[in-house]
């Protein structure tokens, strides 16, 4: 799409790495958890009625995707209009439960430039850290976003 010649300089890269998003918070609602489990087709009772092993109702592993708008702002303008999600790497430390307040912050871990079949791309690695109301990290999600 972009025919211009965008260059990611070392300086732009250095300025970007470490940039954090504003914190985003969400109260976890039981009905939302059940609706999410239904939408992903997962009938595990841990998400609807709870199990002895989980000690009550917990959220499915990717439920935290429902927290939107966790975007660190890049400190430069890039002439790309399209965005692709390249994938995610989730690490889990504690269950997320109805009644929890989860706060998420995204941080730019890396940014690089590449030219591939879809043309020039700006590839950012963003790590989102999700904490609960006790300030315990419940999960981290490291995602690759591709702008082109």
């Amino acid at each position, binding site marked *: 799409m972009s025919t211009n010649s965008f260059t990611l300089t070392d300086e732009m890269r250095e300025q970007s790495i470490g940039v954090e998003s504003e914190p985003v918070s969400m109260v976890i609602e039981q009905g939302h958890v059940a609706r999410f489990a239904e939408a992903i087709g997962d009938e595990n009772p841990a998400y609807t009625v709870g199990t002895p092993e989980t000690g009550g109702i917990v959220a499915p592993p990717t439920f935290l995707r429902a927290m939107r708008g966790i975007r660190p702002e890049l400190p430069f303008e890039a002439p790309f209009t399209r965005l692709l999600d390249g994938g*995610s790497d989730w690490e889990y430390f504690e269950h997320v439960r109805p009644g929890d307040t989860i706060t998420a912050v995204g941080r730019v871990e890396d940014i690089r430039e590449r030219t591939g079949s879809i043309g020039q791309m700006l590839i950012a690695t963003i790590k989102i850290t999700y904490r609960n109301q006790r300030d315990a990290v419940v999960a981290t999600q490291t995602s690759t976003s591709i702008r082109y």
Partner: protein
Amino acid sequence: MSEQIFFEDVREGMELPVEVRNPTPRQLVQYAGASGDFYEIHYDRNFAQSTGLKDIIIHGALKNAMLGAYVTGWAGPAGELRRLTVQYRGMDYPDEPITAKGHVSRVYQEGQSNLVDCTVWLENPEGQQTTPGTATVALPSRN
């Protein structure tokens, strides 16, 4: 739900049972509502085609969730998911079967945990791995 699998029952190379799912446009709308991802390429065919896609496509995050459900279902009620990685390599479309497959790649102990690494993926009807991933689960011991 499923029976419990124990750490002692798992061997490297062991295959996870194959599961076939059939996501529908209705499910994509449900997922849009539940996740808040209302990007039109997932439910508006005209819009999707205007961006060059042949049809509406399944949310990458829904495929991520399907792999999560696949692994946690296999790990059983007392299994704990520690890590899940997923890569989106290709588009998948509703109203086509999508098949989850996987195998055990490593069996090991770390600290107090009995850990199992799995290689997992979703396959389209042509047999292409559109969504490869890995998972680490902690399993209970029989002892």
